[in-house]
């Protein structure tokens, strides 16, 4: 057996294990994935319009519900990557050392975190697929989805899910189990609120310093990239910039995550 083919066999084993765990824990997985986007849509596009409160309106004639769709798909991906990659990895690398058996598999060490990222990205896509019908059907106001290019949608979905999963890998290797609560407060919350989920990036031109500052946030490019693919009538970043930044950030996060992983398992 050639080296590459034998590595593939081990990776299929790693995925089979992850898939088994996902199937067993699908309910908590689904709840963690769906809760935030569902409640966001429920409160802002269902409850508030019915209580007579004015919704923020994005540029042009687009409804707030339309603005939210790409952002919330991106949020679902980030939550999934945290639930599916970061939290389990943080624990498996922690006191229980559960990762040990996989680290001792006859494959280069980096294969284990890379397989995790790939599976995390797959789960991110799954999460996007689960949340999409909910956030497009639930709002009381109209939602304008227009896929101009399926190729663009595919590209943005792949880049976004990879970015989310690599963020999960990075956080999972960098954060100790006892710091998970802190991670939610100081990393995830700002990423969510400053991720161009509830407003397009272009609308931040009113606050120039913030418009510049949020550019370090990977979620911005996920939201904007999916905006290009799903709601092109809402103002958005250029496709080249969004795709390029997603590829760059995902590569950096993956590299940092793999490095962190190797450092945690080898003395």
């Amino acid at each position, binding site marked *: 057996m050639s080296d590459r083919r034998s590595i593939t066999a081990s990776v*299929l*084993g790693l995925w089979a294990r992850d898939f088994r765990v996902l199937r*067993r824990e699908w309910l908590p997985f689904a709840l963690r994935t769906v809760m935030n986007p569902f409640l966001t849509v429920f409160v802002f596009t269902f409850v508030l319009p019915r209580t007579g409160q004015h919704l923020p309106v994005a540029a042009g004639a687009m409804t707030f519900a339309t603005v939210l769709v790409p952002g919330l798909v991106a949020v679902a991906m980030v939550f999934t990557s945290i639930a599916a990659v970061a939290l389990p990895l943080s624990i498996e690398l922690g006191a229980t050392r559960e990762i040990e058996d996989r680290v*001792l598999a006859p494959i280069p060490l980096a294969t284990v975190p890379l397989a995790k990222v790939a599976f995390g990205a797959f789960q991110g896509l799954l999460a996007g697929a689960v949340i999409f019908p909910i956030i497009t059907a639930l709002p009381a106001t109209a939602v304008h989805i227009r896929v101009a290019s399926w190729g663009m949608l595919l590209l943005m979905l792949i880049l976004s899910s990879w970015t989310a999963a690599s963020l999960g890998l990075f956080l999972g290797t960098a954060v100790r189990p006892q710091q998970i609560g802190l991670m939610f407060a100081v990393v995830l919350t700002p990423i969510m609120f400053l991720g161009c989920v509830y407003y397009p990036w272009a609308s931040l031109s009113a606050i120039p310093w913030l418009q510049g500052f949020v550019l370090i946030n990977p979620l911005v490019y996920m939201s904007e990239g999916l905006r290009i693919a799903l709601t092109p009538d809402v103002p958005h970043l250029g496709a080249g910039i969004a795709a390029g930044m997603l590829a760059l950030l995902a590569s950096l996060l993956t590299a940092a995550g793999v490095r962190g992983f190797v450092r945690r398992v*080898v003395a």
Partner: protein
Amino acid sequence: MAAAVQLHDVRKVYDGPPPVTALDGVSLDVEAGTIYGLLGPNGAGKTTAIGICTTKVGATSGSAVVAGLDVARNSVAVRRHIGVAAQAITLDRSCTVAENLYYHCRYFRLHRDDARRRTKELLERFLIADKQASMPGQLSGGLAQRVQLARAIAHRPTVLFLDEPTAGLDPQSRLALWDLVAALRSEGLTVVLTTHYMEEADQLCQRVAIVDHGRILAEGTPEQLKQESGGFAVLDMALAGNHAVARAALDGVAGVSEVQDTEHGLRVLVSADGTAVPRVVSRVAEHGLTDLKVTEPSLETVFIRLTGRDLRE
């Protein structure tokens, strides 16, 4: 016979501050098909030695060869030939007992059907079939260690590394695990284990290295070690009176080879035939002897002789 494991002048210094020298020039050969024991107290460097052989720890200098392969250069190939059971239970807590075995086989490239067959075989052989659907968290320490051993050999390695396999187990579980390890050896597997139980090293291992502070102090068969290191019995005496006076009273007593001060009294190394024991006791009795413990010549007494300390200190 070929060596299954060879360490040559292996040093490992963990970065500080302060830097810790875990291994300080360790060399050893493990003959294929034998059980080799690294005996020493906690912190002696045994786990680091296993870590280097199993690709988890990089040596600072020196070389490690396992199954004919240099560990530093061929870590992936080495992992194919070795089985590892860590001291802590590292079973996958998100998977059942059977799944732990099954997916381990899959990581080692067994085809799905082969992996399933192998899992069934191991569940039966290690008498854990009735626990196959249990999650690892529900298992007792002894059972978990057994599952871990089954998992370690699931891909049919040639060298098995066991780090403190019976630490914390009840005596019955320990004996059961010894039987399993001895049976694996009789099938041709080479086993390297660490332990701080001298009975374990004595009864299970063909060769033993006594390790302390990252160095091998003595190496040989258990019998050789017991003879060469003097074959001493150790008398631990608790004294109510003045230790120095009692110590002086032992000057020149035949059969006494060494006297050491301990916290509660004196430790006396006497010749193994035991004839010196009554003489020592009668000399010390009048100096407030309150308790007496005799340790027969064993690897434990060898260790005490070599280091001046107990294995469990």
